[in-house]
């Protein structure tokens, strides 16, 4: 090894420039010091718990430390070894929850997975890779202080909850190594302040004061009208920066970042001008649109069996006069678990709203026979036949692969030879026969599994799945045109609701909104726990309060992440990572509240909204009145 290193060193020295040489020296020196200097723990806080990001939402006690090593300074967390002490946290709503380090009631096989999950939580993070962190210090009795670290590559670490202390010791010690600053716009966000970049920012702002380059561009009405703001910025980046900021110490990427930041800092401009693509998309126009403030929205408690029954006529059908009221109740509070089996059949169109118990029973028998026939079509295909039936064989193998990995951490689907997996398999295979053209596409098993969990019956699950696919099948079509259409609509909605974010995304090549693909494809199935997904879906199935409410949920989540995205200066990749890491850290009630508030904002200004926005949401003058309740459900979604 040593002769080879020496060879490499000489070779590099000869061939490469000064920069590379320094690099080699650096790493040789650091390799040398690594073996000589012992690690020094400068901060150790026991009683800091990580929140498991699975269905259990358990807290795992551990130790947070900051360690000086020869290769750098690291923030580290690991689970406590003496983890027998369970502890209590007062949650936001005043309830107390007990956190058992490892509950002995777990079965042997589960315990193995859990201890792996816990080991997975431990981390060691170089402070130079830290971009920012969420630091929440709730008022006394309102829960525990917590931090959540966010890396420069967009990765978010598990949230850490401080049992005994505030987070101030952590903040103080970290300040020895990094310059920290609270975000101006979001008090809970602490941003690592990049000194090199900051020095440049000063020079840029001086430049701006003297030369006023940027504002001259901004004040040019012709340019402003003809192009989106970010396009001016890119002109500034391409033409102006290289000549005025020829500073070797700072990379051009950083210069661009700074110019973008400067642009974002120009609040006055931003608040006056709202840029969005017009419907034709051929050129961009500048409009002024001030949305009214977001109203306070309160969610209601979930619909109980008793409440549900009050909407029924004596024959078991839903009173048509009360139908809208019923939908609004489900929209505002979701359903109690005990009523889902009955209610989902209606919400998904398996049972018609005006169908009596007797009528539905009769039709159900017919559908049951139909199901068995379709099931026989595939279950009677022999292995030999399958060899010459590749289109079928491909679909079958996809179904088998995906069933085996759908929601296996949920108790209902846990364990080898789980009967429910067979039912899920049967439902999806029969759907392949029901709609052979579409067949099976990845993501469908995510839609089917909660239905089976609620229905607990193969035939009922199948027909509910058919109903759900009637709404969502376009997500799975080969050309993906519908997904792209939804992404475009989402971009336009963000442009209206949060132009600051929309402009940021555009200037960071992220306005294709692809990072929301998973959200839209499987309706947030991967972002929420199983039960939260059930609630979110039944809310969406009501078709209230407007069409494409799913997209407003996307807008609400992105809106809540605006400062994190912008203050961390995230680009395309980091945004994707950040959005992926939001999974299982979102609060379904908060998001539904925010999305509804955004709906009211838009609805209140519907006569000022661009016509395409009204069309997406089916509001305003162009709104299409649905002809029948069941059709409205399909059209709205």
């Amino acid at each position, binding site marked *: 090894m040593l002769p080879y290193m020496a060879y490499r060193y000489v070779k590099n020295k000869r061939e490469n420039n000064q920069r590379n040489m320094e690099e080699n020296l650096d790493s040789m020196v650091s390799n040398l010091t690594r073996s000589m200097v012992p690690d020094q723990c400068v901060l150790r806080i026991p009683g800091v718990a990580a929140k498991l990001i699975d269905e259990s939402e358990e807290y795992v006690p551990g130790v947070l430390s900051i360690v000086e090593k020869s290769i750098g300074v690291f923030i580290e967390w690991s689970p406590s070894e003496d983890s027998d002490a369970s502890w209590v946290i007062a949650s936001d709503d005043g309830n107390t929850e007990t956190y058992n380090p490892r509950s002995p009631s777990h079965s042997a096989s589960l315990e193995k997975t859990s201890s792996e999950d816990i080991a997975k939580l431990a981390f060691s993070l170089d402070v130079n890779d830290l971009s920012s962190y969420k630091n929440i210090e709730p008022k006394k009795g309102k829960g525990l202080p917590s931090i959540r670290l966010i890396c420069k590559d967009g990765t978010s670490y598990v949230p850490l909850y401080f049992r005994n202390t505030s987070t101030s010791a952590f903040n103080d010690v970290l300040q020895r190594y990094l310059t920290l600053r609270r975000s101006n716009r979001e008090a809970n966000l602490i941003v690592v302040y990049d000194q090199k970049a900051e020095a440049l920012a000063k020079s840029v702002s001086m430049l701006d004061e003297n030369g006023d380059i940027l504002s001259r561009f901004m004040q040019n009405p012709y340019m402003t009208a003809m192009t989106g703001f970010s396009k001016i910025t890119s002109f500034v980046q391409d033409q102006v920066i290289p000549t005025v900021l020829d500073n070797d110490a700072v990379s051009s990427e950083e210069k661009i970042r700074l110019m973008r930041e400067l642009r974002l800092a120009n609040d006055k401009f931003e608040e006056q001008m709202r840029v969005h693509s017009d419907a034709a998309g051929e050129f961009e126009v500048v409009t002024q649109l001030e949305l009214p403030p977001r109203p306070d929205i309160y969610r209601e408690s979930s619909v109980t069996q008793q409440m549900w029954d009050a909407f029924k006529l004596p024959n078991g059908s839903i009173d048509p006069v009360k139908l809208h009221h019923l939908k609004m109740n489900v929209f505002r509070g979701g359903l109690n678990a005990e009523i889902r089996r009955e209610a989902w059949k209606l919400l998904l169109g398996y049972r018609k709203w005006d169908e009596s118990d007797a009528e539905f029973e009769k039709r159900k028998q017919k559908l049951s026979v139909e199901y068995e026939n379709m099931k026989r079509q595939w279950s009677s295909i022999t292995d030999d036949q399958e060899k010459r039936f590749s289109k079928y064989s491909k679909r079958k193998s996809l179904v088998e692969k995906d069933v085996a990995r759908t929601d296996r951490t949920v108790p209902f689907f846990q364990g080898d030879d789980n009967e429910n997996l067979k039912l899920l398999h049967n439902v999806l295979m029969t759907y392949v026969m029901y709609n052979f053209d579409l067949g099976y596409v*990845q993501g469908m098993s995510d839609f089917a599994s909660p239905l089976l969990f609620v229905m607990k019956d193969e035939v009922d699950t199948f027909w509910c799945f058919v109903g759900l696919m009637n709404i969502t099948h376009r997500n799975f079509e080969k050309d993906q045109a519908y997904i792209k259409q939804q992404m475009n609509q989402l971009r336009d909605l963000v442009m209206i609701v949060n132009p600051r974010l929309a402009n940021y995304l555009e200037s960071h090549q992220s306005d294709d909104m692809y990072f929301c693909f998973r959200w839209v494809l499987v309706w947030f199935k991967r972002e929420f726990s199983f039960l939260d997904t059930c609630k979110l879906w039944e809310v969406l199935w009501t078709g209230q309060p407007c069409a494409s409410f799913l997209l407003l949920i996307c807008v609400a989540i992105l809106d809540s992440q605006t400062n994190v995205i912008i203050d961390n200066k995230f680009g395309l990749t980091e945004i994707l990572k950040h959005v992926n890491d939001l999974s299982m850290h979102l609060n379904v009630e908060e998001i539904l509240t925010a999305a509804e508030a955004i709906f009211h904002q838009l609805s209140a200004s519907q006569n000022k909204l661009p016509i395409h926005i009204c069309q997406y949401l089916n509001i305003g003058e162009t709104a299409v009145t649905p002809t029948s309740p069941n059709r409205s459900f399909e059209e709205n979604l």
Partner: protein
Amino acid sequence: MSGTRKKALLKVIILGDSGVGKTSLMNQYVNRRFSNQYKATIGADFLTRDVQIDDRTVTLQIWDTAGQERFQSLGVAFYRGADCCVLAFDVTNAASFKSLDSWRDEFLIQASPRDPDHFPFVLLGNKVDLESQRAVSSKRAQSWCQSKGNIPYYEVSAKEALNVEAAFLAIARDALARESQESNDFPEFPDQIRLNPNQQSNSSGSGCNC
């Protein structure tokens, strides 16, 4: 101290049929863990791992994608600027081997690398722990690799952590060697591998100069 370190970022894309083990390979390499509970990947995600190659620290950014063909076109933005493409198949599944040609073509079309004829691909035959169910011989895989301009081939098992480390290390080594070769051959072109003084601008998208 560590502020002076300079890292190269290598972007590696894993492609292959659904269920061949792309997510498992990525997780085995980065987290040294295997789980049979991974869900089917929807959209795209990546994990990073720093690796020491001779005297340099290299950050491998490994991208995991959905295996179903129709979802490919949407993720194109993330493929751009890839330094290496890992094609993965399942040695127990002959169909996943047959798809390799189309995955390779798809990548060359979508990512449109600068020099498609010499773009570094690597082939991983996964699940060799299931030897009794093997459907694609090592010889067959190797001859495919030869026909595509001597693509390196590794037989691996994400489950048993077999050869995964070695394969990714070789990927990093090869890409790094190409980097120094390219910067010698075409000094006037921007580096395909971005050298970041403070690792902050690792992301491909944020630093785009266009």
